[in-house]
């Protein structure tokens, strides 16, 4: 499903003290090789600044690798133009962010429909799918509520429903249980587990060992390099 081969990512850092015109180079990823088969649940673990989020950003087609290639579902996406990457992202990838990132001015259903609202017009079947996803997340009857009135856990579930509105093959989650209590975090991980069971490819960034146990494979990353893999 997803293949990374020799992926590096280098950023321009602040100017060097001795020469302001020469930018310091920050190597966020240093040659990542990673194969994620369809339907796998992968947890990427590592300390802060290890390159987890950069890796997720590349997997989500939000940024381009400096070198190396990435193949998504048989298509080399490395050299694709911005428009193509956006289309692929809308069709094949669902994002769950560290914070729920809901739009406070929209109600629960509208938040779930957001990707559709942004990419085209919302149809009746889209609304029906949004309501069905919300029901799956245990939020039936809350569709018309304003999103900020929901609890933290409920907001995460809405964010997960939003990630699934386009029925993507891949779900990327960046610390999805951050700032949640243990029980709520467990509920959310249960939902991600259900997605995996339904055949979705799930890639989750976390630094919580307990949460990583829900995954079928854990990839450890340190200083931009994958150190070890452990299979479930």
């Amino acid at each position, binding site marked *: 499903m997803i293949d990374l081969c020799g992926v590096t990512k280098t950023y321009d850092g602040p100017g060097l003290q001795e020469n302001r015109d020469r930018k310091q180079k920050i190597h966020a990823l240093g040659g990542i090789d990673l194969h994620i088969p369809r339907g796998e649940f992968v947890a990427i673990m590592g300390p802060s600044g290890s390159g987890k989020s950069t890796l997720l950003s590349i997997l*989500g087609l*939000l940024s381009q690798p400096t070198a190396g290639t990435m193949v998504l579902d048989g298509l080399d996406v490395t050299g694709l133009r911005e*428009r193509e990457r956006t*289309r692929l*992202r809308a069709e094949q990838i669902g994002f769950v*962010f560290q914070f729920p990132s809901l739009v406070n001015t929209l109600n629960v259903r509208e938040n779930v429909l957001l*990707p559709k609202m942004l990419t085209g017009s*919302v149809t009746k079947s889209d609304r029906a799918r949004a309501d069905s996803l919300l029901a799956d997340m245990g939020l039936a009857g809350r569709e018309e509520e304003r999103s900020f009135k929901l609890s933290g856990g409920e907001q995460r579930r809405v964010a997960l429903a939003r990630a699934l509105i386009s029925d993507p093959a891949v779900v990327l989650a960046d610390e999805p249980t951050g700032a949640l209590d243990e029980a709520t975090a467990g509920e959310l991980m249960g939902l991600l587990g259900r997605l995996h069971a339904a055949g979705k490819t799930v890639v989750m960034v976390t630094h919580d060992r307990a949460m990583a146990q829900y995954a079928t494979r854990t990839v450890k990353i340190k200083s931009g390099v994958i150190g070890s893999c452990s299979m479930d």
Partner: protein
Amino acid sequence: MWQRVRWAWGNLWRKPLRSALLVTSTAMTASILFLSYFFLMSVDRSLTASEARFGADVMVVPKQYSAVAEQVMISGEVSPFYMPASVLDKLRQIPEVRQVSPQLYLTTYSGVCCQVEGDFSVVAFDPASDFTLRGYLSGEGKRFKPDSLLIGSEAGGKNAVNHVKYKAYHEQLNLFGHPFEIARVLFPTGTGADKTIFMSLDKARTLDVKAPQDTISVALIRTNPGDEEYVKRQIERSIPDVTALTGSKIRETINRQLKPMRFLSYSMIGVVLIMAALQAMTLFSALVNERMREIGMFRAVGAGKWSVYRLMLTEAALAAVVGGGIGVFLIATTLYDNQTLIIKAFTLPLLFPNLLTTTWLAVAAVVLTATIGMLAAAVPTRQILRRNPYDAIREGE
């Protein structure tokens, strides 16, 4: 599209404070723009009217009074000077002259006219041949007879204009020892002509008006289009004691005098535009930056850059149209409601534009404000869209 507009509209409603700020800012911008152009147009319209009123194609005056006459045509304030009335016959003999109408400038009347006290110029004109005052006569009033007067708006006309339509209304004025009745009033021009009282030339000749017998002050001439300069030369060749001034020369003088004012007005509009754009940009920039996380998230969930632009620009346009509409409506109604007060307060000549022109002006002001608002929203949106969406989300959290 309507779905996007509804969403943008909802976003505005659900953030009342933010939207109120936007609407107020755009209302101020639109109203200032409207006001600037409105005054410029009022002044222009008024000057065109003044020009048409006293700017006959050719004006003939005694030779030594050309400079004074030029000022008379521009300001409408008269000063007595005379030439023989026989000049009129000579002028009528020139084939290219279509119409000739004499005016005699008399002494200034100091007193009260229609409850207005002041010094008013008195001009005698020939109602039969006149073509300059006709267009400015009030629709209502009495038939002009030898014992009738026409009065300018500042010479009591404003008080009389609402009453002259009634048959029972009789306002009398004693001039040169003779009782006259106010027949009609002239619409305001904003020039000295508004403080003028007009009487019949034939009647003036029967009174002790302290002007030499059988004289006139000016002869106003209408020619065929394009013949003005030719007629002027013909007059100066055939009548040596007079000077002929053409309308084009007067127009040149008016334009020369108006140049600094026009420059000032356009500069003011330019400064207002720049200030409004800067103010809107500052506000929009702050508001768009506040939504950095949201914009990053939009991109991450699959929205193209253009979709994000469209949403932000739709919100900006809606806020600007609502704010601009409110601003223009408030300023326009205030202006029309206080028209008389404003005309009195300003020494500039002012004739307000008609409803159609005002509507166009209002629409233009709102469209321009919306354009400024959209540009102001586009710049910070572009900056955020250039960032990695993931960084935008994390930075905005």
